């Protein structure tokens, strides 16, 4: 992502303690790196290089291996997410019903592209593949709320309802 969006790492001691516990739990498990990264992302919301380094040291694998895994899977994020995470479904069922236009409307509304976070940290946009609500296509998620049978003109109003 763009340089200006890199936010300095600010982990708390509590988070670090949680991470150490996760590392200890998966240290000796075959194939434990993936679940460890998943839980680490649960703690920090993303996987900054500082966290990857702690995992590499703690689990006795090289940083490049950790980085390789973290970048391979689309669920892992190396950049922080917004306070509200918007995710537009680009699965086939949604796409044939015009979800690309929903995504464009979100991007236009927030002035950022998919994969980015607004400078104030309020919103980030992603696309996803089939959230399993194809009956409601096209579908958009804001945090855990599902909006279905969407029309592009409804997007702005929905986003506004999240800005307190």
């Amino acid at each position: 992502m763009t340089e200006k969006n890199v936010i300095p790492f600010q982990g708390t001691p509590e988070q670090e303690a949680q991470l150490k516990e996760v590392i200890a739990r998966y240290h000796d498990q075959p194939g434990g790196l993936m679940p460890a990264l998943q839980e680490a992302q649960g703690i920090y919301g993303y996987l900054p290089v500082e966290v990857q380094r702690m995992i590499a040291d703690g689990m006795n694998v090289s940083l490049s291996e950790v980085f390789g895994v973290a970048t391979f899977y689309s669920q892992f994020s190396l950049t922080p997410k917004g306070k509200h995470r918007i995710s537009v479904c680009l699965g086939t069922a949604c796409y044939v019903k015009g979800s690309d236009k929903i995504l464009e409307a979100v991007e236009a509304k927030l002035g950022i592209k998919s994969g980015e976070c607004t400078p104030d940290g309020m919103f980030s946009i992603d696309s996803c593949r089939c959230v399993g609500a194809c009956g409601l296509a096209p579908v958009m998620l804001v945090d855990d709320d599902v909006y279905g049978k969407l029309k592009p003109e409804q997007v702005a109003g929905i986003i506004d309802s999240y800005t307190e």
Partner: protein
Amino acid sequence: MTIEELNKIKAAKADIVKVRTIIAEEGEKLSKVTGYRKQVLVCGGTGCQSSHSMEVLEALNAELAAKGIADEILVVRTGCFGLCSLGPIVIVYPEGTFYAQATPEGIKRIVDEHLIEGKICTDLLYQETVHDDGSIISLSETNFYKKQMRIALRNCGVIDPEDIEEYIATDGYQALYKVLTSMTPDEVCQVVLDSGLRGRGGAGFPTGRKWMFTKDAPGEVKYVACNADEGDPGAFMDRSILEGDPHAVIEAMIIASYAVGSHQGYVYVRAEYPVAVHRLRIALDQARKYGLLGKNILGSGHDFDIEIRLGAGAFVCGEETALLTSIEGHRGEPRPRPPFPAVKGLFGKPTLLNNVETYANIAQIIRNGAEWYSAIGTEKSKGTKVFALGGKITNVGLVEVPMGTTLREIIEEIGGGIPDGKAFKAAQTGGPSGGCIPAEHIDTPIDYESLSALGSMMGSGGLIVMDEDNCMVDVSKFYLNFTADESCGKCTPCRVGTRKLLQLLEKITEGKGEPEDLKKIRDLATHMKSSSLCALGQSAPNPVLSTLQYFGDEYLAHINEKKCPSGVCKSLLHYEIIADKCKGCTLCARKCPVSAITGTVKEAHVIDTDKCIKCGVCIGNCKFGAIVRK
């Protein structure tokens, strides 16, 4: 757990669940002996939860408590019923009445009028179930259900997936008992082979053969794994099975572990499926608690346990070797086969890997016999197949039909046809590895062979219906975008080939295509098919090739006339306001999602074509017909 205990649970609960499968008078009689006057089923599948079925459930419980009838009425939260586009769905037994798009307000009426006074709220029902003369039919008699045959989905929408005893009530874990006490591993493999069951994850390899290979592979330690990655965009069969009937998969994996000689299993499931993961966890815990998982299962001496691994959003991890590499904790890159996983799989040990739906058939095959199963379907494709029916179709949802059912039956009868009076154009099967079947082949019986003869494939079971408004060049660009994105990059033909193909398609949809591009596409496709390492790269050109075969004229229109006949490809069309007709009502400017329209009140408005995303919202809103699409 012993068989006596299992049977005791079954006997205690069987009638309660049975009320949900037989309707009218018999159900009426049965409901008297169960202790519940009525049962209300609320769909707890992801589709219905997205349309707020849990709020309906809460309102229902609150209302029953307020009216003091909570102990006369059994409330059950089930998995998906199949008709997701009508969610939230609520069914009342013993009548079997089917309430669609239920709301918390509506549920209060259902409690007052239907549950208390005995008068069905006809206006809230799915209207297909209400005849002109006012008579009501049950869900099982509708067009949507009549043609279906539910084997893998048998318990979905029937039982409470979070209650192991409801699964046991429907003969759950009886097949496991039969296998452990009266069959040898060879006999189990033979039954599966004789049934003719083929892998439902895509390729259709005979499941029994795979079990035998794994059983016969040398080695002390073996693994049984379940592929619940379901990366196909627009498919949700496996998720629905895990959400609606997780024990069916668990029971089958235990049976498989006995057949191949394994003590440890893994379910690799997408992290984007939180409800499925949650229910699977509950089911595993319950199975352990009931002594059906862990040490000495059903007193047989057989040990087996299952662990969940969460996929992290990489399509290629659905490929078998990549999946195993991912469980090992690495980047999920495929490896060359042979050696096949049956010989050298997880952590280098023989591993049996099957798809969720494949497993969901096993217990039934064991209980009812190979002959029963192989009598269903076509000569080479036995049994049933679950499809996730989506796109431009009235009844979006989950359907299970015998192999050999025609596409027309699925689309027109079960699916209820194409909405808004539009014409059917094509059905896409097999996801990114598949292709499009055009309208002229709508009478094709669906099985593995006939789909590949048409240049498509069964794949995992995504069935996306498209109408005249969909552009087939755009659709193939969509799939290429997907595969280019998801290529793991390990081998060049796929990594570079998908990019190149995508660039060619982009060029065509932007109106910059040249006639020789089609030859380039074909050459590239041939090369990718023959030299990619895994099936992702080998099949990535399929959507392009099949649309080229059946919709070549659309490609030519884009290339030669610089036109998109369906009006989809953005670079080839634009929106314009006819100044003379515009009354300056400002409505379009207010509705435009990207503020591409400007103008003052009572004066002609204009569209900024650079900003416009061609969503068509303005044209639908202008009451004066002042906006045109060119």
